[in-house]
């Protein structure tokens, strides 16, 4: 599986969060950029559905930023 930054940004956009996509930084945690806990749960669900993976609660520290999500999914 090869996941790109653009794909993950598109999913964050689809989740309809309060974050500004134009200024969203790839290497900062999403929760520090106006993505709240409910939006984060929605983003993780969209990721699980799109990439047909299970992201367990134990792995949440590995999927905090767009870059870390890309790395996490590419390691699957």
């Amino acid at each position, binding site marked *: 599986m090869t996941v790109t930054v653009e794909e993950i940004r598109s999913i964050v956009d689809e989740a309809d969060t*309060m974050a500004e996509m134009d200024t969203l930084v790839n290497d900062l945690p999403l929760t520090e950029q106006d993505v*709240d*806990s*409910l939006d984060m*749960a*929605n983003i*993780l*669900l969209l990721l*699980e*559905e799109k990439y047909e993976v299970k992201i367990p*609660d134990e792995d949440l520290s590995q999927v905090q930023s767009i870059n870390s999500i890309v790395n996490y999914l590419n390691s699957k």
Partner: protein
Amino acid sequence: MLGIETIATYIPKTKESNYDLKEKFEFDDDFIENKIGVKQHAVKDEGFKSSDMCVKAFDNLKSTTDINIEEIECCIVVTQNPDFNIPHTAAIVHGKLDLPSSCAAFDISLGCSGFVYGLSNIISFMKNNGMKKGLLFTSDQYSDIVDKDDKNTALLFGDAATVTLISDDATFIPIDFSFGTNGKDYKELMCEETLQMNGRAVFSFTATTAPKHIKALLSKNTLTDKNIEKYYLHQGSRYIVDTIRKRLKVDAEKVPFDMMEYGNTISSSIPIMLQKELATTTKGNYVLSAFGVGLSWASAIIEKIK
């Protein structure tokens, strides 16, 4: 045909403001209003039990409906906060209302899916036993089990009870029901001493299960969104109601949101909204869908015939 004749509700007058809790939990107004969707949650009086709230709902039923106690043949209480482990709360309600000794009374232990399950149960039970009038109560007081320091649940839940009068003078009649359970994940929402909820797990379960379940039920009955007047979804939170609506791809005006001033009232959330629909003149099909503890879900199509 047996169905819902009318509904009465009891929502305690006492409310706790969630704005007073926003600093404690570091929530802003937008999160309270547009994500949780609860500005204040209803709290019963100290010492009030499930049966007391049922009696209050019944008092409200009596004030709006000409009802003869002697004609009640069935009394079901949906609750997971019974007055006692033994006996069943329906027996206590039966006694407090002075219902006739010939009246059947039993509890159904279910949470958010309880009204839809209860509706199917009471109609089937009454039909099979030739009964003409029955009462379906929903009643839960989560203020007794919520940890006031838990940010996942402290702002969400409200106390309430409802009573639905089932008779052959129906306003709503059932068309079809569908049910489901995922018992393997029961720990995601449970109460040992206080309520514990894995918010992410419950969100994922609901967002993936409810829309598919509703679509399958419509398809089974060869109905589409065009044939549905409204979708009455369990009011879990604003975010979950919005998420299900978006996944169903239906207009916002067809999916009422009503919990802002009293909270998530568990199995009472759908009858509280349905009670308001009784006053309208819009005939047609309505979808009910609820999901929660168990994990359990239930959906129904009902038709408003008058």
